[in-house]
């Protein structure tokens, strides 16, 4: 409940304020969103599993976003930015899918 509230608040705030992202950070925004999505689905699954923890959620969220951005940044500097982004997206995508599958099992008992 409180998490949904936070999400709603964040979206509304973002739409209203429309904060400007520095152009140097803009390429890492989509990958950060995907990493954050992974952390959020992981947290939801943990919540349904009954093992949710605030601190772990914060740490996993921040580290996910930072590491994903860092990997892509490093790839950009090495000239393999596109390939590394693809790798990050694939790994995160698989995680998201398996987490969502676990969540679905919890919710529908199927």
């Amino acid at each position, binding site marked *: 409940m409180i998490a949904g509230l936070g999400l709603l608040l964040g979206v509304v705030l973002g739409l209203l304020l429309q904060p400007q992202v520095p152009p140097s950070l803009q390429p890492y925004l989509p990958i950060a969103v995907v990493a954050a999505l992974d952390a959020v689905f992981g947290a939801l699954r943990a919540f349904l*599993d009954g093992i949710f*923890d605030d601190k772990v*959620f914060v740490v996993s969220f921040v580290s996910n976003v930072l590491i994903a951005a860092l990997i892509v940044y490093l790839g950009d500097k090495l000239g393999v930015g596109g390939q590394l982004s693809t790798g990050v997206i694939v*790994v995160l995508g698989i995680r998201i899918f398996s987490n969502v599958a676990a969540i679905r099992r919890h919710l529908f008992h199927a």
Partner: protein
Amino acid sequence: MGLLNYITAHSLDEDYAHVSAQRTEGDRPVRPGSAALVVMLLFGLLVAIAGIRTAHNAPVSQTNHAELVTQIKARSAKVDARRRQIEAVQADIRTLQAQYSQATAEGQSLSTQLGRLGVRVGSVPVHGPGVRIVVDDAPNAPSARYRVQATDLQVLVNALWLSGAEAIAINGQAKSFGAEPERLTARSAIREAGSAITVDYRSLSAPYVITAIGNPNQLPARFADTRGGSTWFDLQAAFGLRFHMTSEESLTLPAAHRLSLHFATTPEKLR
């Protein structure tokens, strides 16, 4: 496939299990707190920003597309215009070429006409068959009458013209200008100058070589029929002047040196 299996198996952060294992039974209910609220707020913000950015970029690419379309249209219109221009210029070139070839055809006929006239006038060198006549003074000539006179040469040349010679040159031993034949034109003068004979103000001395281009088979016979021819036979017989005519297959006569006109001009009507 070990890596994929690993990723699928460990899709949930192990920290959750780790922390919950450390937690003692029934310690406190697992409820998301204010930290989760802040993180979710952050997530929402991130999603909103990313969405706005993508939405911003889409119209940009749309306008880019529209811009490109208009550019393509403008450029292809320009290409069409250029193509039409090329066609027009090519048509111009064709007409100009036609005019040019016509002009050159006229020019060619003019230049051939000029060449033909030049042969007659003496402004161009000529080549062809003809006769060579060598005349000389009588050996040990006692008086001027036993030498070849300018009038004798005049008679000889006039007789050659009368016999059908088309071009005549006199090649005496030129004293001043080297041994180049002197082409005779309508304005050429053969004169007596002291003891020498001058042709167009160039002194000649015996033996005189007269080359004439014409029909080598007819020229000697027709020459003999003329009054000049009979005069020369008389000169041969009476004074012992030497006269020798040979037919030549190939003669080359140079162009005349002087052709300038000082007074005669083309009438206004014919220009």
